[in-house]
């Protein structure tokens, strides 16, 4: 497999694929953070999470077109506005979905799975009707174009660096929200013991709704980031949902650190293997390794040891 390449070429290949893996890692982390928060909080497996991401991507696409045609002088900053709007709109839709559908299905995981899958199909059709079946792409501002040449063969694109910085900022924000704020304490209390959380005065329904909205909002930002590395179509979210579930389960659903470590491992493995094998084989091998590890360690990579 490696014999066709010189050692210098192999170093360059691993460096380039490693960096491509880091961008994939960023999207995985953003997607998985939202999914893990929702799953950890409510035990809801949100099959429509990919479609929330794509909503964020379409909002970014709409703003890109709007600023390009109507406000070209502000085009260089549209991406920041797009991320904020993507968060607000997807979070609002998330809150609506929680209120209108998910809250009626708590403690019924299979029904929730089916209902959110149905929602994903509805959203896909809505996107198809509104934006058409063809994939669309955004125009990036000039400062996001170009790359930093490291060697003759290795270049680091600016947009990739931006996505990684964005991911870092969001991961740190989520950490502070969940572990350093009063609201985060309420979320963790509800996760551990819902009836008891209510009995200490926490409005668990309100916490559920806000958490679902935040999880979906982060998916919206993931969608904005996604537009920098791929084009957006009605079913694009489906490509990422399985991998994201893999990240959440492999990392341990209750662990933020586990989610990040798992996203890094899976994205790097896939990205590197994709170069030497096919994309499908890379996914199959990753899945096999993850399943093997989960058989030995079903709680995922990270789990707390405490007296309950």
């Amino acid at each position: 497999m490696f014999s066709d390449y010189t050692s210098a070429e192999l170093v360059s290949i691993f460096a380039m694929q490693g960096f491509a893996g880091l961008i994939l890692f960023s999207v995985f982390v953003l997607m998985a953070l939202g999914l893990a928060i929702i799953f950890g909080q409510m035990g809801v497996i949100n099959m429509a999470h990919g479609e929330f991401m794509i909503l964020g991507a379409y909002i970014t696409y709409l703003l890109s077109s709007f600023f390009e045609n109507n406000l070209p002088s502000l085009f260089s900053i549209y991406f920041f506005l797009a991320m904020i709007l993507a968060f607000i709109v997807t979070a609002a839709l998330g809150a609506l979905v929680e209120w209108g559908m998910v809250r009626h299905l708590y403690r019924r995981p299979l029904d929730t799975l089916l209902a959110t899958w149905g929602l994903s199909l509805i959203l896909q059709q809505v996107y198809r009707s509104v934006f058409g079946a063809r994939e669309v792409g955004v125009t990036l501002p000039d400062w996001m174009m170009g790359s930093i040449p490291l060697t003759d063969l290795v270049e680091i694109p600016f947009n990739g660096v931006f996505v990684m910085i964005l991911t870092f900022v969001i991961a740190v924000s989520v950490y502070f929200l969940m572990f350093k704020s009063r609201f985060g304490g309420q979320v963790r209390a509800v996760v551990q013991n819902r009836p008891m959380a209510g009995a200490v005065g926490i409005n668990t329904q309100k916490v559920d709704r806000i958490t679902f909205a935040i999880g979906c909002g982060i998916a919206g930002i993931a969608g904005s980031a996604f537009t920098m590395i791929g084009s957006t179509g009605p079913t694009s979210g489906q490509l990422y949902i399985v991998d994201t579930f893999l990240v959440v389960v492999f990392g341990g659903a209750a662990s933020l650190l586990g989610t990040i470590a798992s996203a890094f491992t899976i994205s790097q493995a896939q990205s590197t293997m994709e170069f030497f094998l096919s994309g499908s084989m890379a996914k199959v091998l990753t899945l096999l390794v993850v399943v093997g590890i989960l058989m030995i360690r079903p709680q995922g990579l990270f789990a707390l040891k405490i007296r309950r």
Partner: protein
Amino acid sequence: MLQVSDYSVSYGQSEVIHGMNFDIKENEIVAILGRNGMGKSTLMKSLMGMVESRLGSVALGPVDVSRMKSHERVREGLAFVPQGRMIFSTMTVKENIETGLTTVNDKKVPASIYELFPVLEEMKSRRGGNLSGGQQQQLAIARALASKPKVLLLDEPTEGIQPSIIKEIANTLKKIRDSHGLSIFVSEQVLSFALDVADRILVIEKGEIVREETRDSVDEKTIASYLSV
């Protein structure tokens, strides 16, 4: 302070608490005694809104809380220390107490709570799950007190606690009553503990109150007979 009237609780078709009537006065400690399976925990949980009751009423002062959710009852002034403590084991001691601040305006844990339980201040950064049983019981009481309740409900606070700590818990409850002006309703199986803390004792048998006595006139032998298997 707490008035329970014609109160019944059912699990599905099976009624567990039958038309119960009792009250708890301001600044009074009332213990309810009974063997396992007589309905003590169900009564406590339903008073807290964790088990639904369809018949009868629970009034906290002038407010009928019967149809309120748990968090709304906390806002009105009820607080609960459940059987088995049920502290949030992966959260620190400080974070556990802070969950009790949800319904009040305090941003920080009041100093009076750490004065009452100095060991919790020493261990405030430790995970709740890593405390001993007695320390967890103190934490569960501290968490309940953080919401500044008018009535504190405790479900078998001595369960799984070593005898030397049981005495400490009894003293703490009396101190809380005196310093915070609380009413306390405690379910128990240990008669000596109940006699130590309570002003009045109720005995529950198969979901009904079958005996009520004040501490001064209590007939220990008769009450003990209700507790023996």
